[in-house]
């Protein structure tokens, strides 16, 4: 399979990044919800947030690469069966997903770094604090992080429903293209 996208289909790199992001988003959402309710004496009390932050920052790095890759290797042509409304909805939907993704990750970063501390990523390296002087930064960023996380999973759910609609109702190649099939 090709690494780059072609006019007729997605390449391995785009497909791989798409599904890694999908798994990471739902994994981080579940982990985030679960860890907030942890008892102070739980063995996960410190490790769960460490994993959440480490994976979140790696995901931020991956998303930056994904945007660069998208510029370097443009997406395939839209399917000819997609009408004007579908194309417009797709465009808005994808833009909203990207915005929510970057928003939720930046907000999360601004919580943990609000006091100027760096965030260690699995002990491999640290991401330094950049913005620390906003009044009650951790509270504002925390609220944004929560709302954006919900927005992101709801948008992702709609995104998945739309893909299933294309597959089962419209019977077009939208979903299978993201599974590696090329348009014949």
């Amino acid at each position: 399979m090709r690494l780059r996208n072609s006019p007729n289909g997605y390449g391995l790199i785009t497909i791989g990044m798409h599904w890694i992001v999908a798994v990471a988003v739902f994994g981080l959402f579940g982990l985030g919800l679960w860890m907030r309710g942890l008892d102070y004496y739980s063995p996960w009390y410190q490790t769960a947030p460490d994993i959440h932050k480490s994976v979140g920052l790696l995901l931020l790095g991956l998303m930056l690469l994904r945007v660069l890759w998208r510029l370097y290797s443009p997406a395939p042509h839209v399917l000819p069966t997609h009408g004007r409304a579908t194309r417009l909805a797709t465009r808005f939907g994808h833009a909203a997903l990207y915005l929510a993704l970057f928003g939720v990750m930046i907000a999360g970063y601004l919580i943990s770094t609000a006091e100027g501390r760096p965030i260690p990523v699995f002990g491999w390296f640290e991401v330094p604090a950049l913005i620390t002087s906003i009044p009650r930064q951790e509270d504002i960023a925390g609220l944004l992080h929560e709302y954006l996380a919900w927005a992101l999973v709801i948008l992702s759910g709609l995104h998945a429903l739309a893909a299933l609609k294309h597959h089962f109702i419209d019977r077009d190649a939208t979903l299978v293209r993201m599974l590696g099939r090329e348009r014949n």
Partner: protein
Amino acid sequence: MLKKTIAALGLGTALLAGQALAADYVIDTKGQHAFVNFKISHLGYSWLYGTFRDFEGSFSFDAQQPESGKVKVTIDTASVDTNHAERDKHLRGDEFLNVDDHPTATFESTAIESTGENTADITGNLTLNGITKPVVISARLLGEGKDPWGGYRAGFEGSTTLRLDDFGITRDLGPAAESVELILSVEGVRQ
């Protein structure tokens, strides 16, 4: 009747005299010579110290008549700071200080009892997390006198121990951390 009136007059005079003698001080938050700190055990192994960065207060004090004194302090609970952003966020939330619902905590004295040279028990009402309870602060006069800039200052330190669940904080931090020591260390500038 007459006796009561005379007694009341006498008491009134004594109160007036007390007020006339006791000087009013404003707690020096402007020059930051005042601290509202707290400490709580971490797992029974160490002390965690924190502070409220924003507060204001005043007291009246007369060394000859400590019983005539008064103290009032108002604390901005959202200014809690333990030098750890995630913990501070947690402390402001609904498991601890509920700062959105209860943005201020106050202490207002109701009685002062001298307990020795330079020490006193200050009884008063503490409102924290929306709950008002009487507490006793054991206080010590650290010093008073003229400052080098033409003013007059007096400094006190006092502390009291609060049970977290008395003030509606029910988050379980372990058996060693069921109460917190509140420490007020303040300098007042005489008005």
